[in-house]
Structures are given as structure tokens and as C-alpha cells.
């Protein structure tokens, strides 16, 4: 009996954590965005309509993290557990919580950064509000990629959790959630840092808009690379089947998840910071665009090699240990 109750405890905590942790991040993020909007209205009262509209849309985009969390929570809640679920299903569901909570919390928090700088940029350039609005929309949508990946992995884990019958297999699913959850922290912070700098740069020099737009797309694709590595490891962990009593491989898989997850943090953050300073310099000096963008992309490529080492070792831990 105690096993069934523990399983139920794990199930219910997963449901609660999934929405609660996401809501913390989203709540703080929305507060940051709207406080910046009020400050911006103070700076430039003439643009108050534009600023209000932009901040409301920005908040709706930040809300995505909470909507995804609610969706996963509800799917888990509605899933009727007619039979007495085994303890292993409960453990495997912790993977869902890891996948959605970590990425949702960080993204709810950092999605506010571009929205903040965008409203301040509108306060500086009131006649350029349309383009700044579209730029904020695009950058905010792109930085939500880690959350989308976490959502995909959570759905996959949900699909397999019910039929898990051994501890080794449930640890494999937890490892999958851990890889995408921890792996999304660094790239999310890096992407948001870059998007913040890019929105600020448009406020400084609106003539650099076209250059900054193309630079944004190339840089964000490179900053996103570590999270794609984490997604690959996660998907491999989900699709690889292991024997029910093969605990050693399961432990190696947990280590592989930690390896790729922690390995992407440094690469993601510093790659974002490199691109952020390049974007700022492009705004100050649009003529040097070609030199600055080339150096920045080259440096980002080198920084990403750290994540590639992490990926190599993670793959070896899964397959050749």
C-alpha cells in the first residue's frame, strides 16, 4: 500500500510543481516588463498608447510559459489512473516536472528582458515604434525555443511513463527530462541577454535596424546550438531501450544528462554575451558591421565547441560505457 501512496505523492507533486514553478518565473517576468513600461511612459508621455500596446503584447508572450505549464499539468490531471500505478511511473513523471519547470521558470523570468528594453527604446524613438514592436515580437518568440523543446520532451515522457515497469527505465526518463531542463537554462539566459542588447541597440541607433535584424537571426541560431545538442541527447535517451534490470546503464544515462545539461550553461551564456556586445557595437558603429559580425560569429563558434565536447562525452556515456 505504501508504494501506491508514494507513487500518488510523486504524481501530485509533479502536477503542482509544473504549474507552480512556471508561475513564479512568469509572475516576476511580467512585473519587470510592466514596471519598465511605466518608467517609459514617464520618460515619453506622448508615446503612451504605443508603449501600453507593446507592453501588453509582450506580457502575453511571456505568459506562454505559464500556458505550457498549465497544459502539461492538466493533461497529467485528466489522465485517469484507474489501475493502481506503480512506483516507477511516479518516478518517471518527475522527468516531466524537470523538463517543464526548469525551462519554464528561466524563460518566464528572462523573456521580460527584451520587452523591458523594447518599451524603453520606444520611449527614445517614438516614431519608430512599429519596427521596434515587430523586432520585440520576433526576438521574444525566438527565445522561447527552449520552452518549446521542453514541452516536446515532456509529451514524449508522458507517453512512455504509464508503461514503465522497472526502476532503470524510469531513471532513463528522468535523465531525459534532466538533460533538456538543465540544458535549457544557459541558452535561454544567453538568448535573452542578446535580445535585450539588440532591442536596446535599436533604441540607440535606428539606422542600424536592418543590420541588427540579420545579425539577430544569425546569432540566435548559433546561440541556440547548445540547446539543440541537449534536445538530441534527450531524444536519444527516450528512444533507447534498455533491459529492465540494467541499473548500471541507467546511472550512466543520468550522468550523461548531467554532462550535456551542465555543459551547455557556460557555452549558452557566454555565446549570448559575445553577441550582445557585438550588437551594441554595431549600433554605435554601423560601418564596422562586417568586421564585428564576423569576429562575433567566429568567437561564438569557438565557444560552442565546449558544448560539443559535452555532447561527445554524453553520447559515449550512453553507448560505449
Amino acid at each position, binding site marked *: 500500500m505504501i508504494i501506491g501512496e508514494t507513487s500518488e505523492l510523486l504524481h501530485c507533486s509533479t502536477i503542482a510543481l509544473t504549474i507552480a514553478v512556471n508561475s513564479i518565473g512568469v509572475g516576476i517576468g511580467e512585473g519587470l516588463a510592466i514596471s519598465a513600461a511605466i518608467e517609459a511612459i514617464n520618460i515619453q508621455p506622448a508615446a503612451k498608447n504605443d508603449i501600453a500596446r507593446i507592453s501588453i503584447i509582450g506580457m502575453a508572450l511571456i505568459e506562454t510559459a505559464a500556458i505550457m505549464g498549465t*497544459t502539461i499539468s492538466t493533461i497529467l490531471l485528466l489522465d485517469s489512473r484507474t489501475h493502481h500505478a506503480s512506483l516507477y511511473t511516479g518516478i518517471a513523471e518527475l522527468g516531466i516536472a524537470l523538463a517543464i519547470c526548469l525551462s519554464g521558470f528561466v524563460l518566464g523570468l528572462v523573456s521580460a528582458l527584451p520587452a523591458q528594453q523594447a518599451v524603453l527604446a520606444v520611449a527614445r524613438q517614438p516614431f519608430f515604434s512599429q519596427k521596434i514592436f*515587430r523586432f520585440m515580437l520576433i526576438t521574444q518568440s525566438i527565445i522561447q525555443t527552449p520552452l518549446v523543446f521542453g514541452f516536446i520532451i515532456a509529451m514524449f515522457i508522458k507517453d512512455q511513463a504509464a508503461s514503465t515497469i522497472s526502476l532503470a527505465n524510469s531513471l532513463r526518463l528522468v535523465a531525459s527530462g534532466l538533460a533538456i531542463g538543465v540544458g535549457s537554462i544557459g541558452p535561454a539566459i544567453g538568448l535573452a541577454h542578446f535580445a535585450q542588447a539588440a532591442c536596446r541597440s535599436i533604441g540607440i541607433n535606428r539606422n542600424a535596424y536592418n543590420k541588427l535584424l540579420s545579425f539577430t537571426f*544569425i546569432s540566435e541560431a*548559433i546561440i541556440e546550438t547548445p540547446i539543440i545538442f541537449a534536445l538530441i541527447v534527450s531524444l536519444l535517451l527516450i528512444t533507447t531501450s534498455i533491459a529492465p534490470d540494467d541499473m548500471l546503464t541507467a546511472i550512466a544515462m543520468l550522468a550523461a544528462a548531467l554532462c550535456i545539461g551542465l555543459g551547455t550553461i557556460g557555452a549558452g551564456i557566454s555565446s549570448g554575451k559575445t553577441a550582445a556586445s557585438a550588437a551594441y557595437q554595431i549600433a554605435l558603429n554601423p560601418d564596422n558591421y562586417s568586421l564585428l559580425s564576423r569576429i562575433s560569429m567566429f568567437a561564438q563558434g569557438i565557444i560552442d565547441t565546449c558544448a560539443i565536447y559535452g555532447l561527445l562525452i554524453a553520447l559515449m556515456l550512453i553507448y560505449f560505457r
Partner: protein
Amino acid sequence: MQETELLDSQWNLKWLGLNHSFFTIDVTTVVNTWIIIGLLIIITIPLRFILKKKESVARYLVTSFTSSFMEICQQTLGIFSFAHFSFITSLFIFIFLCNTIIVVPWLQEPTKNLNTTFALGLISFVYTQIFAIKSHGIINYIKEYFSPIFVMFPLHVLGKLATIISMSFRLFGNIFGGAIITHIYMQAVEGSILWETLGLISGTNLVILLFFGLFEGFLQAFVFSMLTLTYLSIALQDESDILL
């Protein structure tokens, strides 16, 4: 009752001996998509006659919508191109109708099925790549994958694939989430007359439908078409402008 059972069923090709789930068709999604296409036709044909009248509200609405989208396309692409304008605008109108069809009773959004959003993501990706090849030539297009050095090739390929996945799953996740929340609210309210009246009078029904149906649907359709437009503008730019 009969209708819902018909709509929830699936069509398949088992009578041909094809037993894979790939050949199964989700009837709800397909029928709803057809209804939306029919609605588009029904709206469009009378508009041609309404537009001939000089002073009417419909004429004002249509012209202001069209001119705002023309302005957005021209600002983003640098030049005005009718082909790109009509592609982006039809993408927006179709996704917007797909997302907001939930305000009509008994209909469901086709975009809450992953197959629809994935198809939309593929359409926008293929369109962008075709025009990138057309404007730069196939050799320069392939060269871009190997820039700045050839080692970057896998990263470029992964990046392109990730754009399809993130675009289609972003649309799917938001609409699916909204649909689930609306569905739960409706289930909770439907049970008793008291709650139904309370929801109707206090306006909670309206607020939930407005936010998750109309506002979220509009926002996601706009985000999807703007992302496509911006990817297109990046693809059409001279690569000398980007890299050298």
C-alpha cells in the same frame, strides 16, 4: 450525438491493406479545415461586390487591413513584392481563422492538431528556401551552409531544422493549451444551470473566450506570419550584406 460520433472517428486505408497510423486521417481536423476554407470563400466572394461601393464600412476595414500589411511587407523586405505580400497575408488569414474558429459552437481549431501546424511550418520553410535559391543561385545557397568555415555545416543544418520544429510547436503548444483550458472551463460550467448563468452574467465566459480564443489566436497568427516574413527577408538579402 450522431454528429460528434461521426466527427471523432478516423478514416483509414485498412481496406487497402495499409495498417500503419501514417495512413489514418483525423476526421475532426480535416472537416474543420474544410469548413474554414469554405468560410474563406464565402467571405471573399461578396467582398468583391462590396468593394465596388464607394462608401461602406466593409470597404474601409478591408482597405485598412490590406494597406497595413502592405506597409509591413514593404518595410521588412525593402521592396514591395505582390507574391510575398499575398503569401504572408493568406498565411495570416488562414491561421487566424483556424485559431479563432472555437468561438463558433461545435467547431474546433484545426491548429490544435500537430499535423496542421507542422504542415504550416513546412510550407513556410519550403517557400523561404525556394526564394533563397531563386535570388542567390543554387551554388551560393549551398555555399552559405559552409560559411564561415566548412565545420559549421552540421550546425547550419540543425539550425534550419530547429526553426521548423520551434515554429510549428510554438503554434501548436499555445493553441492546444488554450483549447484545453477552455474545454475544462466549459466542462465545469456545463454541469449546473447556476454556474452557467453566473458565467454568462459575470462575463467570465466572454473573457475566457476573448483571451484564449481571439487574442491568443490573433497573437500566434501574427507571430507566425511575421517570423515567416522575417526569415524571407533574411533569405532574400545579399549574402555580401550579411557576411562580408
